[in-house]
Each structure stands twice: as structure tokens, then as C-alpha cells.
């Protein structure tokens, strides 16, 4: 039983290390700020979850009340990081976007692309004016894009 738990924890820890290697190499190699953010935000979360899960299994391998509490605390770290890491990624990315860091875009994908989206009828009547205001600049941009092409 002990060997199985130890092997499971080693597998979890080293798969977490592989994903962290992906994040670290991606943080070094990606071309611009936004794509680096992809590597940081994703690789960080999963590798932390995997390594902490491995350590929790490791702690639980000799079972008593104290180790149960310690394992719950380690899982609490994983949950905390899973909740906060995307939030900080989003906030840092928003700060960079507001500062006007230029994204590296592929040649035909300049500007903002509108995908539209589902419109819930009847519930958003007060929102229509702001909707119109928001839609206008994007149309201008897409028209300019078409002209340039």
C-alpha cells in the first residue's frame, strides 16, 4: 500500500514538473507580452495543482489526524492558487493592455475582431444605447481594415 501511494505521489510531482517546464520555456520563448501571459497563467496553475496533490498523497501515506489536517491545508493551497492565479493573470494583462503594449498579431488579424454573441431578448432593454455606442468604433475599425486590405 505504501509503495503504491509513494509511486502515485512521485508520478504526480514529476508530471507537475514537466508542465512547469513548459511554462518556464514558454515564458522565455514566446514573442510578446500577451502570449507569454498564456504560458504563465496556464502552466503555473496546473503544475501547482499537480505538485501539491502529490505532496498531499505523500503526507497521507502514514495516516493520522495531524496528517489529515496537513493534507487538507495543502489542498487549500491548491484551491487558493487555482482561484487567484487566473485573476492576477487577467489583472496584469488588463494593466498591460491599458498601458498600450502593442500585441504581435498575424498580418491579416489587425485590430479587434467582433464575434457577436447571444442576445437575450427583453432583459437588456436599458442596455441598448451603450450597446450601440460600443458597436460603432468596432465597425469603423473593421471598415478601415477592409480598406487597407
Amino acid at each position, binding site marked *: 500500500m505504501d509503495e503504491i501511494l*509513494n509511486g502515485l505521489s*512521485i508520478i504526480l*510531482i*514529476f508530471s507537475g*514538473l514537466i508542465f*512547469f*517546464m513548459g*511554462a*518556464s*520555456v514558454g*515564458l*522565455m520563448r514566446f514573442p510578446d*507580452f500577451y502570449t*507569454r*501571459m498564456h504560458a*504563465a497563467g496556464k502552466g*503555473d496553475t496546473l*503544475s*501547482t495543482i499537480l*505538485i*501539491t496533490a502529490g*505532496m498531499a498523497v*505523500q*503526507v497521507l501515506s502514514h495516516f493520522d489526524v*495531524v496528517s489529515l*489536517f*496537513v493534507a487538507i*491545508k*495543502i489542498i*487549500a*493551497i491548491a484551491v*487558493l*492558487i487555482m482561484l*487567484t*492565479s487566473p*485573476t*492576477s*493573470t487577467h*489583472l*496584469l494583462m*488588463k*494593466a*498591460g493592455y*491599458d*498601458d*498600450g*503594449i502593442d500585441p504581435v498579431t498575424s498580418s491579416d488579424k489587425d485590430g479587434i475582431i467582433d464575434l457577436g454573441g447571444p442576445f437575450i431578448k427583453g432583459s437588456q432593454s436599458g442596455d441598448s444605447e451603450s450597446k450601440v455606442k460600443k458597436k460603432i*468604433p468596432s465597425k469603423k475599425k473593421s471598415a478601415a481594415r477592409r480598406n487597407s486590405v
Partner: protein
Amino acid sequence: MEIALMVAGICLFLMMIPIMCRIIIGPTAIDRIVAVNVIGTKTAVLLIIIGALFDNVSMFVDFAIAYAALNFLGSLAASRYFNRTRPAYGKRSSMEVKGS
């Protein structure tokens, strides 16, 4: 088991070195904050591994919780600061894009 944990800790430390390079060469300030954030998250994990190596996980896990929470607060405060006060590149023309 001890050897596996030791190897895992050393690998974790070695993989922080490219991120350190990103802190040094990062062209914008926010790049550096991201790298510091990643290193901080991994330090919380490394603290648990160190605790397991010293056979004292119940003490080190508290440090790790505090470190993870403070790391999140630190990156949040830094992002707010750089959002309000100064552009990361020093370009003034970018201010009119704001809010679009």
C-alpha cells in the same frame, strides 16, 4: 523517497532560472511582475517540499499558505500601481486607446 523529493526540489529550482532571465531582460515592467508572480507561486510549492524533506510539513505548510496569499496580493497591488501611474513603455499616445 527522500531522493525523489530532493530531485524534484532541485528541478523546480533549476526551472526558475529561465524565469529569472525573464526578470532581467523583460522589456516591460509588467513582464517582470508576471515572472515574479510565477516564481512566488512556485516558491510556495517549494516550501512544502522543503518541509517534507525536513520531516516537518505541518509547520512549513502554514508558511506556504501565507506566501501564496501574499504573492497574490503583491501582484494585484503592483498591477494596480502600474495601471494608474505610468505607461509601461513610456508612450503617451497610448493613453487615448484606454477604455476602448
